[in-house]
Every structure is written in structure tokens, then in C-alpha cells.
């Protein structure tokens, strides 16, 4: 390996400079306080976990995990997402009586990046998990909370697409007969390859009616009416149940008054393979990737020894900032520039200003070379220079 330059960072790692830090913490505060207002409790977990527990239970691809060894030879991973660590804590510690639990987090997660720039390998996620509540109301609540949090963060134009993974599985299984054949078809959905999907369907040995049903499935996107069309395609009970759940969800979100940004998309499947029912992604203007996603995962807690359902979402802070666009540069800091003679006075003035909540910076004039350029950075500058009483 050639010698590294001092400024180099590992692939995908980014610095957060003061201006961005400020913008980020404002957005973070807005979202976090909304989550707290809804009764969610924040918690944290370690950045490092065992590969054999959290690493394998997580739905993030193996090659995206940062792995390292501890000094006993155990393989560790940097947490690639927060849902799995929280499921671990909930199952082992918090869930005593299987009472509904509402948890939240705001943390960095790590996903190794092999390809090119434009995608960070470490990014912050803010999310919630509603655990041990299998009602559709819990799904509705997390969606309504997500809408509310995004609005608080200042995102104006966004859209949520909701799908149901069990519906897809049931429909494919019912028409194709075997798990294996259903999976082969689902793969095209994961790959977002609708051309391949249609070709595959045409090549199958099915009645023309069944083929048409599979082709019509790709059109199950849009508003409320999609559910009627979906009911026409599915015949078995479990599949109908999935649509009933979606209907309930829709009504719940309507009762929250938040249906304006909601769309249905039954072709939506997720790389997060732990989802078992309703799942969703959220998109914003001017960002080429989803800004967040979520859904119901009823089997993940089982991997940690508790049989109960859960639902939640995670928002990506970096992409929310991208959606907010230009950072507005607001200068609110004031400066007190002093010389030795009036030092004490300057300290008292700064203390008083800080007491009023004004960000105040103290600077000894001896430490500054270019006074004009330095003072230009502040909203207001008080000069306490020379003997007291003379010019200020």
C-alpha cells in the first residue's frame, strides 16, 4: 500500500464540518422531540456487536458488514442498522410481560461501501420501534409519526409507498404452487427487473388467466382503489387478510388525517428480509434514494427468544438534509473583542449576554491579525478596547 496522505479517510467515511453539524442537529432535535412527544423512549446500543448474533440476524448483506476480531478471536461487526440490536435488548431485557414497548434511537450505522462515492459508509438513522404490539394501529401510528416527524424537520414534499410482503408471497404461492417457483419470481421484484418478470411469467406453464393475474400484479400501484383490484387477483384467505390489514391501515392513517402523502404499491419488496407484513418506503423531492423505510417484522424477535411482533421505521439523516437543500447560513453569534485593560468588563458583558441566551464569543484583540475579516463573521461586535470610558 502506498503511503497515505494526512487528509485521507477510509472509503465512504465523511467529516461533519461545523455548518453541517449545526443543520444536522437542528433536524435531529426536531425529529427527536416529535418522537418523544408521542411517548417513545430513546435508547442506545453499542456500536460493536457479535457477528453471530446481530450480524447474522440483520438483513444487511454480509459483504456490507464491517467485520473485525476481538482479542479472543470472536468476529465482531459494526452495527449495520439499529432494529436488530434493539430487538436483542428488547427480547433479553425490556420485554418482561410482553407489554407494548415504544422505543426510539438516533445513532450512526455502518455499511461497507465498495463501489464509488456518493454513498456514505457511516450514516445516522433516527427511528422508532413499536414492539409487542401486533395491532394494525401500531403500524398506523408509526406511519403517522413518521409523517409528523418529517414535517417537523421541514420536509414539505414527500411520499410514502406502502406494500405488503405477505400479499406478494401468498399471491405467488397460490398461482405458482411451490415456494421455489414463487421465490424465483420474487427475485425479479427484488432486482426491480419488470422486463425479466414479464418474460419469466410468459415462459411459465400456466393458464392464460393466471399469467394475466401475475402481469396485472405489476399494476397494483396508486391510491385506495388498488386494494379493490388486489382483492380481485387473490383468492386465498391469507392473501385477503393481508389486503384487509392494508385497508385497516389506510383507514387509520385517514383518521390521523395524514393520507395525503400516502400511496399503495404492492410491488414494493425490501432487501430487509425480516419484514413479514406491511412495509413502506418514504421518498422526497430532489433525493435519488429513499429517505427512510420501515415495516412490520414479526419474526426477528424470535431469533432472540421472544415470540412477539413489532413494527417501526428508520429515517436517514443525511438524505433528509439533502432533501432540505441549501443550508441556510444564519449568523447569530455575537463577539466581544477586548484588550487587556477592559478584560474583566468584557467577561461580565459576555456572561450577561450568554445569560440572555445570546451566543457570545470572547476574543482578545492581541490574538487576531486581520480585525476586519475576523469581525465580519459576527452578527454584532462590541469593542472593549483601550482605557474604560474612551471609545468603544
Amino acid at each position: 500500500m502506498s503511503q497515505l496522505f494526512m487528509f485521507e479517510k477510509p472509503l465512504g467515511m465523511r467529516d461533519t464540518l461545523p455548518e453541517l453539524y449545526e443543520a444536522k442537529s437542528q433536524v435531529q432535535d426536531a425529529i427527536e422531540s416529535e418522537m418523544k412527544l408521542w411517548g417513545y423512549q430513546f435508547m442506545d446500543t453499542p456500536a460493536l456487536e457479535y457477528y453471530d448474533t446481530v450480524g447474522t440476524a440483520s438483513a444487511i448483506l454480509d459483504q456490507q458488514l464491517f467485520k473485525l476480531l476481538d482479542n479472543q478471536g470472536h468476529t465482531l461487526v459494526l452495527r449495520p442498522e439499529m432494529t436488530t440490536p434493539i430487538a436483542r435488548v428488547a427480547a433479553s431485557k425490556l420485554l418482561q410481560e410482553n407489554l407494548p414497548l415504544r422505543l426510539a434511537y438516533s445513532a450512526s450505522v455502518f455499511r461497507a461501501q465498495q463501489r464509488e462515492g456518493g454513498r456514505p459508509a457511516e450514516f445516522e438513522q433516527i427511528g422508532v420501534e413499536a414492539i409487542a404490539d401486533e395491532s394494525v394501529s401500531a403500524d398506523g401510528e408509526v406511519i403517522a409519526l413518521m409523517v409528523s416527524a418529517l414535517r417537523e424537520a421541514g420536509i414539505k414534499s414527500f411520499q410514502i409507498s406502502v406494500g405488503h410482503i405477505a400479499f406478494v408471497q401468498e399471491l405467488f404461492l397460490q398461482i405458482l404452487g411451490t415456494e421455489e417457483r414463487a421465490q424465483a419470481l420474487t427475485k425479479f421484484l427484488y432486482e426491480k427487473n419488470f422486463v425479466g418478470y414479464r418474460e419469466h411469467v410468459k415462459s411459465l406453464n400456466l393458464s392464460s388467466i393466471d399469467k394475466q393475474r401475475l402481469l396485472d400484479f405489476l399494476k397494483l400501484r396508486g391510491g385506495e382503489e388498488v386494494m379493490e383490484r388486489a382483492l380481485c387477483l387473490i383468492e386465498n384467505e391469507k392473501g385477503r387478510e393481508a389486503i384487509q390489514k392494508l385497508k385497516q391501515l389506510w383507514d387509520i392513517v385517514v383518521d390521523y388525517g395524514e393520507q395525503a402523502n400516502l400511496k399503495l404499491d404492492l410491488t414494493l419488496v425490501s432487501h430487509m428480509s425480516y419484514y413479514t407484513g406491511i412495509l413502506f418506503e418514504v421518498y422526497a423531492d430532489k433525493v435519488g434514494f429513499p429517505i427512510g423505510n420501515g415495516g412490520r417484522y414479526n419474526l426477528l424477535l424470535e431469533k432472540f427468544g421472544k415470540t412477539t411482533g413489532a413494527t417501526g421505521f428508520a429515517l436517514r439523516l443525511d438524505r433528509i438534509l439533502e432533501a432540505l437543500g441549501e443550508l441556510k447560513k444564519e449568523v447569530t453569534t455575537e463577539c466581544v473583542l477586548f484588550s487587556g485593560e477592559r478584560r474583566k468588563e468584557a467577561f461580565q458583558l459576555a456572561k450577561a449576554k450568554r445569560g440572555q441566551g445570546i451566543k457570545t464569543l470572547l476574543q482578545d484583540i492581541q490574538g487576531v491579525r486581520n480585525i476586519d475579516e475576523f469581525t465580519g463573521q459576527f452578527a454584532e461586535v462590541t469593542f472593549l478596547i483601550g482605557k474604560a470610558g474612551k471609545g468603544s
Partner: protein
Amino acid sequence: MEDLITIAMPKGRIFEEAAELLRQAGYQLPPEFEDSRKLIIDVEKEGFRFILAKPMDVPTYVEHGVADLGIAGKDVMLEEERDVYELLDLNISECYLAVAGLPNTKMNDVAPKVATKYPNVAARYFREQGEQVEIIKLNGSIELAPLIGLADRIVDIVSTGRTLIENGLVEYERMMTITSRLIVNPVSYRMKDEQVNELVERIAEVIERKG
């Protein structure tokens, strides 16, 4: 300007056929469209902004969302494996991927070498055949590789087969047929669904008509 739909078009071979397809779908493109040397062409009447990219780069622009839609060859889609929706087979610029080499030659037993512009596609293909090969990535004039002994075989797209014949090469295996695809960014597919759906329907109709 805000509401223009950005379409990434591949420069070169596919461009004219793709432009023709859009015209057949009833879109009014200016006559100098094909001759322009500009990299960005706005057609405000139709609400489109076209960007002209290298064919191999089209899926990259679309994945990052700086282009909503794009037209890309299946060869490029297989090589790049980008996270974009492949919505339509446009049935244009048909060609195929093939394995070629000098006539009456066998692959080297110890270290069989394959030169190609498509290292991922080639590696996957030979792996699926149960063959271990070494891949050498080239950026063009792939036919040169077996002629001067860089590789035993090449993997490349073939449309008429003339380049192969003129250089004294023969086709050993036909891997798959390649056509151009309409691709869309996953966010644009949802945030701009009305505009995207309209375009898809109009183009699908033309393809249907042509059969």
C-alpha cells in the same frame, strides 16, 4: 424548469433509434436533436430534459437520481447491476453477447484468459459454465486481444458479425440477446409516477404496434 423529466440517453449507436422511438410515441423533438453536440438538451414543450451520456454511464445517472429515466442496453444493465427499475424492453438496437476467438483454438489449460469490456458479465457466465478463467478488462477494440495473444477468448457484443470476420475471429458461443431497456430511478418512479406512467404507456403502445 423544476418539473422537467430528465432522460439519460446513450450517445452513439442506440441514440438515433431511441429518438425515433420517442417520435413514434408522438413526442415532438426538434429536428436538430440528433446533430447537436450539446450534452444537455431541453425540450420544454414536452417537459423533457435530455442528457447525453456514455452508454455505460446511463444507469449510474439514473441510480443517483440526477436523471429520472434512461435508455440503456441490457448488456450495460447486467454489467453494472444498478438499483433501478427496468420497466420496458424497447426492442431496439438488437444484438447479442458472444464468446469469440481465433478459429480452431482451445482455451489455455493452466490460465485461460478472457478479454472483455464486461468483466462482471463474463466472470458470471464462465462461472455458471463451471469454467475457471481469468478476466482482463479492456475498454474497446476487444478483437485485438486474441490477435496479439493477450487472451484466448473475448466476450463482446455482436450486431452484424462483420468486425469479427474482418479480423479473422469466429464466434464460439452465443450468450444472450441484448436489446435496449427503459429504466427509471426508484424515487422518480413514485414521486413522478404520472409523468413516468404516461411515457411508459405511450412507448409501450409503439412497441406493441411494431410487434
